[in-house]
């Protein structure tokens, strides 16, 4: 071969190789890297664990790969500290070069991440943090929420309670942004429906050792119902003490459904019976997907799947379905987000879509009542508010 021929041949080979690279939608064998920033230590470690398990089961069920690309989860502990969470996300983006981000649990961490992912244009899928502003005033094309907004959860309960005859309530919630947002949304629809709020208390999120002082106040105010928001240890205390102080005989206890989460409803004992809750998921929802989900989850982890696990599970499914629309391509982030807007599916919670106007999820919200069952307390769905969608709330996407 002459020199010229060899050079030509090499050039042709190089061009061909480039063409192949250009045509193939992505590095076919490389996994999709997903950076997961959730609390694995501290007070919310249990939630981080639940969501991660949901994610893993979701990728197993709807993956394990999309267009030939497997999924690789890189988990980092947010420690529920905004600065730490932000630092971990920077590590995931700059060092691990993840394609997508999933997290966090707490809204203060989400607030810290928002501007960074907005500038970097890396899609962040929130599997829990409910702050209204994240899909309202502070919304971003790159922040998608598969869990809920605080207002979305409680808004439906106002008219519903009035209709059932509970026309006076006392509001009580932990004194932080989530507590206030939940109560604000409830108050608005409740009073608009003609209900009257005869008292409000906001005990400290941390440091409240005892609800005795508040329960005595509630009792003295004589409302027909209480609408409460507490979670975790505080929820256990509140529900038990509500009973012990004899309020349950005369006042109906209602609240955002974390009050009697399956994670600890059995620890609350008989005190947890007869409570009305409103939430985006309870294990007893009657549909095929939920049955399959609960069976698979219980087989794998030996425990009933919680509202947190389902949020992880649906997050995984959203990612898989969106990426199958883009043919496994994650290089064009704009196309990935657009695909997420197009995805809709029936999950354990019911039909789900992402609202392109706010990036918040559109989902059914379930009202349930607790009653003692054969194996522990059962959460029975008694009403479903379908396709709850947030107004834009100042979001312009």
């Amino acid at each position: 071969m002459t020199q010229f021929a060899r050079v030509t041949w090499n050039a042709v080979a190089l061009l061909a190789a480039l063409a192949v690279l250009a045509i193939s939608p992505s590095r076919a064998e490389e996994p999709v890297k997903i950076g997961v920033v959730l609390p694995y230590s501290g007070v919310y470690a249990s939630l981080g664990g639940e969501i991660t398990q949901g994610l893993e089961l979701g990728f197993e069920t709807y993956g394990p790969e999309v267009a030939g690309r497997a999924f690789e989860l890189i988990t980092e502990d947010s420690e529920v500290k905004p600065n730490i969470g932000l630092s971990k996300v920077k590590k995931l983006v700059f060092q691990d070069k993840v394609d997508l981000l999933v997290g966090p649990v707490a809204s203060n961490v989400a607030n810290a991440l928002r501007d960074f992912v907005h500038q970097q244009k890396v899609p962040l899928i929130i599997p829990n943090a409910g702050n209204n502003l994240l899909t309202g005033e502070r919304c971003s094309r790159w922040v998608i929420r598969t869990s809920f907004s605080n207002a979305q959860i409680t808004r439906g309960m106002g008219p519903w309670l009035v209709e059932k005859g509970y026309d006076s309530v006392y509001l009580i919630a932990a004194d932080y942004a989530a507590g206030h947002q939940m109560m604000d949304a409830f108050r608005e629809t409740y009073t608009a429906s003609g209900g009257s709020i005869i008292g409000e208390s906001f005990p400290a999120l941390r440091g409240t050792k005892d609800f005795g002082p508040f329960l005595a106040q509630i009792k003295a105010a004589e409302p027909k119902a209480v609408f409460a928001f507490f979670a975790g240890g505080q929820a256990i205390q509140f529900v038990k003490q509500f009973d012990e102080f004899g309020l349950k005989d005369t006042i109906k206890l209602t609240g955002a459904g974390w009050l009697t989460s399956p994670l600890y409803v059995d620890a609350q004992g008989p005190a947890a019976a007869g409570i009305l809750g409103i939430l985006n998921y309870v294990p007893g929802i009657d549909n095929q997907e939920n049955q399959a989900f609960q069976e698979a989850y219980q087989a794998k982890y030996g425990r009933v799947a919680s509202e947190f696990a389902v949020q992880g599970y649906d997050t995984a499914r959203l990612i898989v379905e969106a990426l199958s629309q883009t043919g496994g391509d994650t290089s064009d982030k704009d196309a990935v987000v657009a695909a997420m807007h197009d995805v809709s599916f029936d999950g354990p919670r019911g039909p789900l879509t992402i609202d392109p106007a706010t990036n918040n999820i559109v989902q059914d919200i379930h009202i349930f009542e607790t009653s003692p069952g054969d194996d522990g307390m059962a959460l029975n769905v008694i009403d479903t508010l379908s396709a709850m969608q947030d107004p834009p709330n100042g979001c312009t996407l």
Partner: protein
Amino acid sequence: MLLDPTFLAIQLLNGLQLASLLFLLSVGLSVVFGLMNFINLAHGTLYMLGAYIGLSLVRATDSFWLAFALAPLAVAAVGAVFHVVLLRRMQAASPMRQVLATFGLIFVGLDSVRYIWGDYSHALAAPELLAGSVQVLGQTYPTYRLFVIGLGIIVLLVLYFGLERTRLGAIVRAGVDDRETATAIGLNVERAFFLVFCFGCALAGLAGVVAGPVLSIFPGMDISILILALIVVVVGGPGSLKGAALGALLVGMVETFGQVIAPEYASVVLYALMALVLVLRPGGLIPVSKAHG
């Protein structure tokens, strides 16, 4: 509402109940503080440990009373190990090193509890005898809380007479007042301190079990109550039994009535109270008189 006597009475009981728990938790912290000039930041961890060991015992034996009796012993044993392994080596160290070593132990304890018992929240059921509620001035009040109040008073009385009437008490009092002289006249102050330390740990463990049915059990329950216990000790006067009782009463009442009157400022008020006492009466409200500064 505040002028309604039954409402006031109920809130008083709530305050007393919290004070009683805080007293159980703080008295060990306070006496050790007074004896060894040493703040054990891991004292809350011992309380958490008591609650979790109690939880396991209740699950295993189905008996609250067994847990009530055994969990404090188990926590005392942990305290003894802690004293032998760490504290003895640290006696000569500066207060900062002691504080920071126990600061490190908070994290060790927290993750140990998470590792053994998991991340979820739990609660203890009150024993059947005390499970229900009773009528107080026509108001329903949980029986168990009255038990907590009673227990606090009993422990206070036992400790008071123990300190006043027993030989160990005399050694401890002598040690708090003037350690060097007490040692010089041949009292075995070291051994007395060790026993007192273990006893304080047992009381923290007891507080943990007793708190189980009232408060919930979760990793981190130690940190949320530690600061309150520190406030009790500082306000009352480190090293003083009466001080711990008074401090607990004050903090319990401020916390309870603060929530009712001005929930916005309740937590800030407590810290302000502590800062104020420190500045105006650095030895606490009931200071222990010390022979040597």
